[in-house]
C-alpha cells in the first residue's frame, strides 16, 4: 500500500477529483490534442501566450487520475511562465520520470508541486499518463497540429 500512496499522493488524488483550469479557453493563441490509445486518455490543451509569456492555460478531456492531475498541476504551473521556461520544465519533468533513478531528487528540483509525480517513475506503465499533458504542451508551443500520441 505504501508504494501506492507514493503514486497516489493526496495532491494527485485531489487534482484528479477537482481538476483546476478544466475549461475551454476562448481565443487561445495555441492549442493541441493529446491521446493515449492504450487507455483512451484524451485531452485538449489551450494556451494564451502574450509577449513570450503564458498568460493562461486550460484543458479539457477525460483520463485517469495520473493524467488528469498532471494536466491540472501543469496548467497551474504554466501560468505566468516564459515559453522558454515552460519548455525547460518539460525537459526537467520528463527527466524526473524517465531519467536515471539516483539523481531523481536533484531532477525534481525546480519543479515545485510537480515533484509529487516523482513516484510515477516506479510505475513504468503509468509514465505515459503523467507525460501526456506535457507532450501535448510541447506540441502546442511548437505549433504542431497533429494529435500527440503517447504510443
Amino acid at each position, binding site marked *: 500500500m505504501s508504494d*501506492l500512496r507514493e503514486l*497516489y499522493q493526496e495532491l494527485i488524488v485531489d487534482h484528479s477529483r477537482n481538476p483546476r483550469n478544466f475549461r475551454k479557453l476562448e481565443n487561445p493563441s495555441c492549442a493541441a490534442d493529446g491521446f493515449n490509445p492504450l*487507455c*483512451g*486518455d484524451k485531452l485538449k490543451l489551450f494556451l494564451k501566450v502574450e509577449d513570450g509569456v503564458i498568460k493562461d492555460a486550460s484543458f479539457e478531456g477525460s483520463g485517469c*487520475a495520473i493524467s488528469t492531475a498532471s494536466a491540472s498541476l501543469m496548467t497551474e504551473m504554466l501560468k505566468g511562465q516564459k515559453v522558454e521556461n515552460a519548455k525547460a520544465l518539460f525537459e526537467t519533468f520528463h527527466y524526473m520520470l524517465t531519467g536515471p533513478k539516483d539523481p531523481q531528487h536533484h531532477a525534481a528540483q525546480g519543479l515545485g508541486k510537480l515533484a509529487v509525480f516523482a513516484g510515477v517513475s516506479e510505475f513504468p506503465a503509468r509514465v505515459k*499518463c503523467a507525460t501526456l499533458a506535457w507532450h501535448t504542451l510541447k506540441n502546442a508551443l511548437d505549433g504542431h497540429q497533429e494529435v500527440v500520441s503517447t504510443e
Partner: protein
Amino acid sequence: MTSRIATPESTLQARAALDVESIRKDFPILHQNVHGKPLVYLDNAASAQVPQAVIDALQKYYETDRANVHRGVHELSQRATDDYEGARADIQKFLGAADTREIIYVRGTTEAINLVAHSFARPRLEAGDEILISAMEHHSNIVPWQMLCEERKAKLRVAPINDAGELLLDEFEKLLSDRTRLVAVNHVSNALGTINPIREIIGMAHRRGIKVLLDGAQAVPHTAVNVRELDCDFYAFSGHKLFGPNGIGVLYGKRELLEEMPPYQGGGDMIASVTFEKTIYNELPYKFEAGTPNVSGSIGLGTAVRYLNGIGLDRIEAYEKELLDYGTRAVSAIPGLRLIGTAKEKASVLSFVLDGVHPHDVGTVLDREGVAVRTGHHCAQPVMQRFGVPATTRASLAFYNTRAEIDTLAAAIHKVKEIFG
C-alpha cells in the same frame, strides 16, 4: 448418507467436480509472488497460461526433434512432421471437424479472419453487397471487413445489442438481406463475456444461403465446440488463449468452401509444382499454409488440446459457470461498481467500471495487490461507445482460478476505493 455403490447422481457430481488445487500444480507460472503478493491471474481473455505439458512439448521439440516439416528425408524432419500433423489431428477431433484438411494453421484468430476476408469474401463481394457483423465484435472482426468493404464498395452492417450486451436477434435477422454475402460474429464476446445464440444465428443465415464465420477466440477455452454439429462454415481461434503457445491459431473451414477458395499467401509448401509459366497449388490444408510454419506452436497447441480433453470441457464449463456466478455476486456487492455486460448467457468475463475511478488507476492498484487484470477498451472500442464508457476493468476467468482469488479481487477493489475515497 452412505451407499455401497455410486449412484448416478454421485457419479455425475464426481465427474462435474474439478480438482482445482491439483490442476493449479500443472501451471508453474501461477505459483509466484507479484509485488510481494501471491499472483492472482485474471487476464485469461488476453492470454491464458500454459500447463507444464505444453512447456515440456516445446522443450522436447527444441531439444530433440527440431527440423523443418514436409521436406527432409532425415529422422528429425520426420519426427517434427509427425508431431506437427499429429497436432492437427488432435485439433480436428477437438473441434469435431470431419477431416484434418479442414484445419488450417494460422498465426491466430486475426489471421484466420483476414484469410476468410481475402480468400472467401473478396471474390464474392460486389458493390452494394453486405457483410453482417455484431456490435460486440473485437477489432479483429471489424477492421478486416471495413477494409474489404471499402475496397469493394460494399456495406458493413452491424447488428445491435441491448443494454445487457445481448445480441438483438430480431434486429439481426432483419439485417440479413439478399445482398448479405457473409455473417461474421463472435461466439463469445471478449469485452462483455456474452455467449451469442450461434445456433439461431447460423440457422437464420443458412435459411437464406448465407455462410457464417464464428470468431471463437473467447469460446474454445470455456466450452466444448463441435463445428459439425453447429454446421458453421468457418470457425477461428487462437492458441495463446487456449492454454497454448503464442503465434499459432486455427481456421476451421468446410472442405468444399476451402477447396473453392484461392490461396491467401504465396510461397513454399503451398505449391504442388512451380514453373515460371504456371504454379499448381498444393492440396488442402497446405494451400493455405505458405512458408515454413510455426511447427513448435502447432505441437504446443496440440498438446494443450490433449491436456484440455484430459480434464473435459464439460467439467470446465460447469466449474467456470459456478465460479463466474460467485464472482458476479462478489463484485456486484461492491458499492459504486457497475458491471458492463450482464447477459443471461455469459462466460468468463467480469467487465466493470467503478464510480469516479478510471480503469487504468484500478488496474494499477490491483496489480500492486498481485491481481492481474486488463484495463482499457479491450480492442472493442465500439462496445465501449455503446455503453458510454472510455474503458473498463476486465477480470477474465479460467478453470484454474478459485473462489479465494475472486475474494482477493474483491478485497483489492475495496483498496481502490480506500485510495480514491
